[in-house]
């Protein structure tokens, strides 16, 4: 493969992904391509399959059918078993940052240790270098002053910013946001959105599952509306949010734009 082709490899490719929980089909053949440096927002009501799709990307959900590629490397490998797959997926996941709705900070570690644990243990970084790196990322999310504090002393917005710093410290190729602001009090949403906006400016590739329509419209390069496990509509945000083709998209957007603002 030539270098030219290499740079054209999409960062994330989702091809014909199917997933069921028992008898319930939650993903019915999803396709999505995220190019390098692009931001894709996935919207939809709860139960639409959007979170499942995002979680499938780093294999927190195991898909039944289809292919997911990260930077040309296949994430799901039905052909691999046991420890071989474990090694494969652990390696893949080091290149993907995930931010959860409920932050999931490690409560027994200081803010700084939350950020530096993975670089130290997974990349063999020494304490001093890791500390510098950790402080750099905490600085970026505006929380350097809280480095020695334990998560129980942080507000929801601060926790989520630390969680973002923790994911960034692994220097991932793509960031996955699973309703990162849904659990936050309204007044704390903006500080997290600000951090995400700054990542957008730096051309971090991002896949964002969100309920924040205004934010999605602002930062995304591409928006996708899911309902009942299928993609109803997708397109560039300007058209998607102002003049969608499908009635279902329209009514969803109307409901959410009204209730949000």
């Amino acid at each position: 493969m030539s270098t030219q082709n290499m740079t054209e490899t999409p960062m994330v490719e989702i091809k014909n992904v199917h997933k069921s929980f028992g008898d319930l089909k939650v993903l019915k053949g999803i396709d999505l391509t995220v190019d390098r440096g692009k931001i894709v927002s996935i919207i939809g009501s709860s139960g639409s399959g959007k979170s499942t799709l995002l979680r499938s990307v780093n294999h927190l959900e195991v898909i039944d059918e289809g292919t997911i590629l990260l930077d040309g490397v296949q994430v799901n490998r039905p052909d691999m078993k046991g420890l071989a797959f474990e090694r494969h997926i652990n390696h893949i996941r080091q290149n993907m940052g995930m931010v959860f709705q409920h932050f999931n900070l490690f409560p027994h570690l200081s803010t700084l240790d939350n950020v530096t644990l993975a670089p130290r243990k997974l990349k063999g970084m020494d304490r001093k270098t890791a500390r510098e790196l950790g402080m750099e990322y905490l600085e970026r999310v505006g929380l350097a002053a809280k480095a020695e504090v334990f998560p129980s002393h942080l507000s929801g917005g601060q926790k989520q910013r630390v969680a973002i710093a923790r994911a960034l410290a692994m220097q991932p190729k793509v960031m996955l946001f699973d309703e990162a602001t849904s659990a936050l009090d309204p007044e704390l949403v903006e500080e997290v959105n600000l951090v995400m906006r700054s990542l957008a400016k730096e051309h971090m590739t991002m896949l964002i599952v969100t309920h924040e329509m205004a934010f999605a419209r602002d930062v995304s390069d591409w928006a996708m509306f899911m309902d009942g496990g299928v993609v109803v509509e997708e397109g560039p945000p300007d058209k998607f949010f102002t003049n969608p083709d499908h009635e279902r998209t329209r009514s969803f957007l109307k409901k959410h734009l009204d209730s949000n603002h």
Partner: protein
Amino acid sequence: MDFNLMADITPLLIKAAWVTIDISARAIVIGFMVASTLVFLRSIKFKPLQWFVRGYVSLVRGTPYFVQLLLVFYGGPTIGLKMDPFTCGVMVGAFNIGAYMSEAIRGALESVDSGQNEASRSLGFGRLQTLGYIELPQAAGLMIRSVGVLAIVLVKNSSLVSIISVVELTYQAQRLIGSTYKPLEIFTLSALMYIVIVYAVMGIVELAYRRATRYTTQ
């Protein structure tokens, strides 16, 4: 109360109390290994193994410790399981407390929010790393408390090994009563010694608990 007698026999009882501590400490350490093994076996997704562990735990929990002791000490040699009394006391104690401890450890690990596991795995940590860096440290507090309670029960139950003639605190007390006919003095002394041991264990458990949960108060 014959205080002179009590003063005279105190050194003998202290010596025997050391045997109580020794036998209990060994049983707890080996029991912890038994428990960890049981937790590990039960985590393997292979039904017969899980049945085995559950069957074993039910068996231990469903029968008196006293009967387990008699069964192994007197019944064991018939199937080639011959041990001296001390070893038998340690092993029966270990396999007994191991069953209870495995449930305590499992419960403590399950109390850790599943989001912790997901966050750790999403960073690229493997199962064992997640267990070691994330889940165990958070389960440690609860684990220490429950294991501590079991350890105290074990110390007190160790008095039962006197039946297989291990010369520990209770056996020694009975022997001394046989020669002095002063059960009130001697059993009072031995009871006091049990209290000292039990409270020492409680103190250690509390310190360990505070250390393990320091992060919640910081």
